[in-house]
Each structure stands twice: as C-alpha cells, then as structure tokens.
C-alpha cells in the first residue's frame, strides 16, 4: 500500500470533495473487511459491516480530532460496528452458517496465499471472534497493545491476557489440525 496523506485528504473531504474519500476507502478497505470478517465469519455480513463502518467514519469525519492515528480511529469504528452486527444477527436470526467463506474474485490471491488464508480462516474459526480480531490487529497490522486497547476499549491487561491465550490456542489448533503442512505453506510463501 502506498502512503496516504490523511490530513490533506480529510481537509479536501471536509471542504466538500466527497470523492476524495475513495482514496481512504481503497487504502483501508481490506483491513476493515478483515476485522469485520474475523468478528462475523461470514463474507456477506462482513461486507455489510465494512460498508457501514466506512459510512459512519465519513459521517463523523469532522469529529476526528487527529489525537489518534486515522487508522486506529477507523479500526475502532469497524471493530465496534462488527460486534454490533454480530449481536443483532444473534438476537434476530439465531443460528447462521459461520463457515469461513470469501468471495471467489480476489485479484491478488495466488494459489499459495489462498491456501494459507484458508488454513488460517479455519483455525481462527475455532477462537472467540473478538480474540481472532485482536490477533489480526497484532500480527497482521502489527499494532501495539496500546493501539489495540484504543480500538477495542478493553483494558491493557485484558488485551495481553487474551492475546496470550488466543495465540496459544491458535498455535495448538494449527499444529493439531495441519501439523507440518502449516510450516510448509509458511516456508513456501516466504
């Protein structure tokens, strides 16, 4: 991803150029979608939550004070929106097929990457959805515990404990289910 000058883009949007928002959407949509997918475990729900997150962020852009990083602010909206969608879904529909599923059209999905992603999706499906998101923030986005605290609203010690437990559980699941295959896929991809 190329670097984005957030403050200039935000100033343009606040000045009435709503099309400039597309640049922020393109830059962050994959991570926002990933957060929503980790919580909701369903591609259609994750896309809806992603749309809602970006619309909410757009609506409240004038309230973004710049005290935190834009990405942290956006991920916080996405995480809370996904949790809220998950609650509504549980309250409204009861059981839903939560098998991981991604849309077929993925332009940069090589066979190898797709295989690793499927493996990770299945392994993460064994975890609590919030823990799966926290792991993604930590390992995929390489966010610090402090940033994860800001995004999730959980306490620092709670985040550390959840991270530790989730890592252990995920590692157990990966090793028990995939064993050396996981190691091979990682090494092949590297």
């Amino acid at each position, binding site marked *: 991803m190329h670097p984005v000058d957030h403050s200039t883009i935000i100033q343009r949007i606040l000045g009435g150029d709503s099309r400039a928002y597309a640049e922020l959407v393109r830059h962050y949509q994959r991570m926002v979608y990933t957060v929503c997918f980790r919580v909701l475990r369903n591609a259609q729900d994750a896309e809806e939550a992603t749309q809602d997150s970006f619309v909410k962020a757009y609506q409240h852009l004038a309230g973004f004070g710049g005290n935190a990083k834009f990405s942290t602010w956006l991920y916080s909206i996405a995480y809370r929106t996904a949790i809220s969608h998950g609650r509504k879904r549980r309250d409204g529909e009861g059981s839903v097929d939560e098998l991981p599923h991604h849309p077929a059209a993925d332009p940069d999905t090589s066979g190898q990457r797709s295989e690793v992603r499927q493996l990770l999706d299945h392994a993460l499906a064994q975890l609590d959805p919030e823990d799966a998101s926290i792991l993604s923030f930590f390992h995929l986005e390489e966010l610090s515990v402090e940033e994860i605290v800001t995004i999730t609203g959980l306490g620092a010690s709670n985040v550390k404990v959840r991270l530790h437990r989730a890592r252990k559980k995920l590692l157990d699941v990966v090793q028990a289910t995939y064993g050396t295959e996981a190691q091979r896929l990682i090494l092949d*991809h590297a």
Partner: protein
Amino acid sequence: MPEPKDTLHDLFQAAGHAAPDTDLTDRIMARVAVTPLLRPTPVKPILGRGAWIGIILLTAAVLLWGLLGSANTEAASGPVSDAWRTVSSALPSSGNWALWLAGLSASLLVLAAVDRVLAGRHRSI
C-alpha cells in the same frame, strides 16, 4: 510487537488480508454520495464563567450578610438590620439556614464543575 521468528506472525503475514468483492469501493462510495457529513455542534456550558462567578459572589454575599446580620440583629437598628429581620422571619425556623446556604453554594460549585467537564468531554470526542 511480535518477535521476528514467530510462526503465528509468519502465518498471518503469509495469509494477508481477507479479500472483499472487487466492487466494494464503488458500493461504499455510492452510499457516501447520499450521506451528509455531520458537523459537530459546539457545546457551550449552560452558564458562562462570568455567570458562575456572579452566582458564587452573590451567594457568598448573602451568606456573609446573614452571618453578620444574625450577630448584630438584636443590638442594631437601621435599614440593614430591618431588612435582615424581614428575611429571617420568612426563613423556616427549624434548622440552621446558614448551613443550607453553604450546602447550596457547594452544590452550585459541583454543578458548575460537572457542566464544564461534560462540555469538555463532548469537545474531545
């Protein structure tokens, strides 16, 4: 930050982000096009700083007047002590009214503080 030689970290990095449909940006922008930007309305405290200082000074003056008035009322005569007698006769006979005034002043101060804290919090959201 994760350690460099971390299997899980490598797994996440190898898997990358989940991939949404390719037209997601267009769908988001279609919704954004019909969504108004919300401008945060500036929230001011209900009463300004000057009003609160005025209330506090007035309360302190009444309190002082009451304390001095109650001390001199029996001996003195004149417009101030006459006014004090009128006020004190209208006050309930039970309880210490000076304490009530002190309590009122404290409550006003607490309300002023809460008012300002809430306005400050709204600004920082």
